[in-house]
């Protein structure tokens, strides 16, 4: 193969983790919520963050697309690199960060607009108007919702069931064509059938996107993720391939947590 600088770069980019956390500490005022966490998020893989309530897993997740910026007393030290670029440098615009790193929330939060407008919203504020229909359809298909809503795109999003609404929120995030999708306990408000559908969807999405999911459901983490980080009291106890974390944990606390002895 002929040498081109581009090809070279591509190879190195693929080996490089898409997100790299280095000694990240997040405080609310003086109270640390996340302490000295270092880990790497692999590209086009699913990484889950597990841990008991209040361990800082949501805080950590929200640090990855700068959603903690809206909490005035939150402050962060350490470094987070997104494809080699500092997420928290002076020059980084949080608005750009969130375009690249999308998010799905605990409770479905569709806008009080039509199904179509919900998906078209992100692209339209960013000035993509051409081919918006195609983009909406593609996003809805990728979120496995198209078949169910194709004939009622202009109905209100609130007419959908909870599980459908959550898939709509995923479609809404996908319409921005992000690299990474953060999911903050996306199934905690859903019934088992809807949960299973979202988990199936995550396997599909993995082909194109990197997913980081926070969950308090250990079975879910074991089922869907390639890598698992176990957080306790804001500290990263263990991080590794999911198989290893669940079957051969290196730490006692991890073993106790994943076998359900506490948490």
């Amino acid at each position, binding site marked *: 193969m002929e040498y081109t600088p581009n090809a070279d770069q591509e190879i190195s980019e693929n080996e490089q983790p898409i997100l790299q956390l280095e000694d990240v500490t997040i405080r609310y005022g003086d109270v640390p919520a996340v302490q000295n966490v270092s880990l790497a998020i692999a590209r086009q893989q699913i990484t889950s963050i597990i841990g008991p309530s209040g361990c800082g897993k949501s805080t950590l997740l929200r640090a990855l697309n700068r959603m903690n910026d*809206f909490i005035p007393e939150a402050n962060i030290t350490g470094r987070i690199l997104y494809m080699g670029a500092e997420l928290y440098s002076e020059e980084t615009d949080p608005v750009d960060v*969130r375009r690249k790193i*999308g998010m799905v929330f605990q409770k479905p939060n569709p806008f009080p*607009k039509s199904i179509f407008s919900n998906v078209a919203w*992100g692209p339209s*504020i960013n000035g993509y108007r051409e081919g918006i229909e195609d983009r909406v359809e593609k996003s809805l298909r990728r979120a496995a919702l198209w078949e169910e809503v194709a004939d009622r795109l202009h109905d209100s999003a609130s007419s959908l069931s909870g599980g459908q609404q959550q898939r709509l929120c995923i479609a809404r995030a996908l319409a921005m064509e992000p690299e990474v999708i953060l999911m903050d306990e996306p199934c905690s408000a859903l019934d088992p059938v809807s949960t299973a559908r979202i988990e199936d969807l995550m396997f599909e999405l993995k082909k194109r996107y990197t997913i980081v999911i926070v969950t308090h459901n250990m079975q879910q983490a074991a089922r869907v993720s390639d890598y698992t980080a176990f957080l306790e009291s804001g500290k990263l106890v263990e991080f590794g391939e999911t198989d290893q974390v669940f079957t051969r944990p290196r730490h006692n606390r991890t073993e106790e947590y994943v076998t359900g002895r506490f948490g």
Partner: protein
Amino acid sequence: MTNGSPENTASLLVGKVRFHWKEEVIRIALFLCAILSVATTLSIVVVLATEAFTFFENVSLGEFLLGGRWTPLLVPRSFGVLPLVCGTLLIVAGAALIALPVGLATAVYLGEYAPDRVRSIVKPVLEVLAGIPTVVYGYFALTFVTPLIRSIFPSTQIFNAASASIVVSIMVLPMVASLCDDSLRAVPLSLRQGAYALGATSFEVTTRVVVPASLSGVVASFVLALSRAIGETMAVTLAAGATPRMTINPLESIQTMTAYIVQVSLGDTPAGSVEYQTIFAVAALLFTITLMMNVIAHRVLRRFREVYE
């Protein structure tokens, strides 16, 4: 109880119904309080209607509603109410032009942009603004706003619609801001976060998610502010003048419906004369207009209401 037969259970409960006279007294007292305001409103409507009816025995409804000259106190008499309606609309339009956008912008600033410290200062100031007696606003218009306008437009009359419009807008501004603020706050945080997570700026989140989501409350606050401006009396009586005139020039003296009612009520017009009855006809019209506005506000609220969990 679990092994008692149904008859036993019944006998335990039957015969316990006593007359709770205290409850009854309280119920009646509360009912009387509730009926008081309804009865007052109804009796006002009845008085307005009967007096207006006698007026319309002398003057035709068509002449009243469509006539363009209002000189009931001067000869030759003319009972066309349009100049008064026009005066009121001029004041309301001017006040709306200022108060609605500024009020909404204030609410948006307070709710979406302002740090807590600024909010904790501005909010009470707005409430004080809402508590100032309207006669003070009238005086303020006459002694401060009018000279200011005259220094810019020297041809301005001493009594003019612009000055009154400005103070009426200041008067309804706190109401618009406060009601809009309430409805913006009712939009759940999760919607804002969803929008921010799509790479929206604060401005986009506000204008394209938060305000549309609270549209019903915003529009209702607008309509209520307008109906308050229509009914506003003291400031327009003091500042806008007493010249019924069909004009859209805000620098001229005009007369509103409310100001006319004040003029006749305070003047020496003999009670029972046609001149005197004009104020009931004008008041009935005023009442009809504000009632219609409130009905519209109600409809809008219902039509656009978004229910959040």
